């Protein structure tokens, strides 16, 4: 698989504060990555370093096969960071033309990209007259101008209203469907869950996890069960070899699996023992639950 970006022990210190601590991961072509972490966890600083606007303290990062200088490599990258930054006195088209000049790409793409983000009808309006949602969409158009190998988005829906958030997500999903590699930094779990296939979770600048979204916690899921005789149910579950921890809250038993087991198996096991269930559901932790579990584990250690 082709590696687009790799980070090796990248570190950034602001005085005493270590914003990014010994971070290593790599981005492979064709996947949609999320960088997930609470506010102030070092997401933007990490992106700033690989994007040539923040100086690293130590470690290294490599774009593509490492043969290009950072600023040359960035011409093959599309990136937007927190706020859309454009010249306020220039129109959408003029701003994009300027970006084309910097990236050294053809200005013919402007029309096409404005169409993707739905800004064609405002193409000759000054940037200063745009709403935040429109600015963000213009930024995406600008990042797409060079048909980038990777699209980097830092909190793309920050500060937008629900409609704006929806528009941006639809655009991102369409781009991802087209096969573009995407790196999305966000503190919003459902955003990452909805869009990304892989995730890097960081907290206080340290990497907690990186890998596919559905393998975050090595858990086999859990059952939520109810039966008329709750005490018997609890006893039977405790005796089952594949079940570990059992929680009993609000008339519902949650049984965590230590080995894979499907719902039929537990159902027939309980039925053989003379208990019929009134409620059975098998679930995996949502990303939110997994994320909280993961961040808590680390903070307890």
């Amino acid at each position, binding site marked *: 698989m082709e590696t687009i970006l790799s980070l090796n022990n990248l570190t950034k210190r602001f005085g005493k504060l270590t914003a990014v601590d010994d971070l290593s991961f790599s981005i492979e072509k064709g996947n949609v990555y999320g960088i997930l972490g609470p506010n102030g966890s070092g997401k933007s600083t990490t992106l700033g370093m690989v994007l040539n606007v923040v100086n690293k303290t130590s470690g290294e990062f490599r774009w593509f096969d490492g043969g290009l200088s950072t*600023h040359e490599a960035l011409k093959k990258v599309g990136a937007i960071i927190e706020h859309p930054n454009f010249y306020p006195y220039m129109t959408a088209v*003029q701003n994009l033309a*300027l970006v084309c000049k*910097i990236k050294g790409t053809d200005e013919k793409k402007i029309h096409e990209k404005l169409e993707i983000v739905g800004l064609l009808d405002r193409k000759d309006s000054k940037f200063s007259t745009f709403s935040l949602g429109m600015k963000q969409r213009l930024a995406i158009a600008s990042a797409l101008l060079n048909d980038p190998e990777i699209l980097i988005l830092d909190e793309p829906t920050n500060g937008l209203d629900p409609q704006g958030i929806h528009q941006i997500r639809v655009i991102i999903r369409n781009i991802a469907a087209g096969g573009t590699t995407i790196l999305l930094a966000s503190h919003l779990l459902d955003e990452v869950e909805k869009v990304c296939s892989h995730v890097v979770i960081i907290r206080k600048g340290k990497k907690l996890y990186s890998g596919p979204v559905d393998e975050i916690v090595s858990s086999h899921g859990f059952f939520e069960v109810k039966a008329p005789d709750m005490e018997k149910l609890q006893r039977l579950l405790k005796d089952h070899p594949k079940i570990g921890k059992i929680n009993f809250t609000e008339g519902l038993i949650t049984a965590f699996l230590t080995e894979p087991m499907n719902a039929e198996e537990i159902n027939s096991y309980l039925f053989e023992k003379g208990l019929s269930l009134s409620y059975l559901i098998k679930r995996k932790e949502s990303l939110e639950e997994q994320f909280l579990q993961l961040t808590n584990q680390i903070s307890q250690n």
Partner: protein
Amino acid sequence: MLRLLNIEYLKLRYSRSARILIITYFILITFIALIASIEFNIGQIEFRVADQGIFNFPYIWHFNSYIAALLKLFLAIVIVSMMSNEYSNRTIKQNLIDGMSKKEFILSKFITVLVFAGISTLFLFIVSLILGYSFSDFTEFSIVTSDLEYLLAYFVKLTGFFAFCMFLGILVKRSAFALGFLVVWYIFENILHAILKFKIFKGTDTASDIMQFFPLQAISNLIVEPFSRLNAVQAAATQIGEALDKDYGIHWYQLLIVIAWIAIFVYLSLALLKKRDL
């Protein structure tokens, strides 16, 4: 090179305030011609400025480059704001992310500075040539082309001043404060000069010898005021018994000091940009 200039051209072209200031600047340079029409009466004597020989070749090169240099503040505002606006609009960040290197960024600004100074010099050359041929008493080719080093000095003077402004724009990041800093620095140099001259090195030339190495003083030393060189003023001075033996020439070492400052300012701008996290 051309790509960088093109980028900068796009940025300036659509900015209305930059456009107005640049146009005003060039119109004002042509207004030097208006000096020719100044007339006033002292008692019975009718005084016409144009008759005083200010537009004679080769004196016109000196006179016009001195007067035109006074107008450089207009372009200085454009340059300071083109630097600091990149910070306040945070477009500098976007430029770098889009694939401009920090070196290219500074280079694009410095090329713009050179182009501003170059066009100003060319413009001044043409305006002076036209004025000279209209009013000068001598129009022989050898006289017209003598003292052209004033134009070179003018070019270096503008480049030096603009490079200073560029550096201040990057250093201070806010255009109003950068211009304020320029004024403060000007006052600082003058106060320092006064202290050196009247307190520490009283009665010697040491003060001027030291001050010539300070940027604004070095820039101002390049072209000495031309007024006392006028015949009328010279004559008046002789009558009072005061001999004016000022050195009006352009000196290579003065050019060199300013060129050194230009290099320092460009280097410092780049170093500052490299060091900073945006």
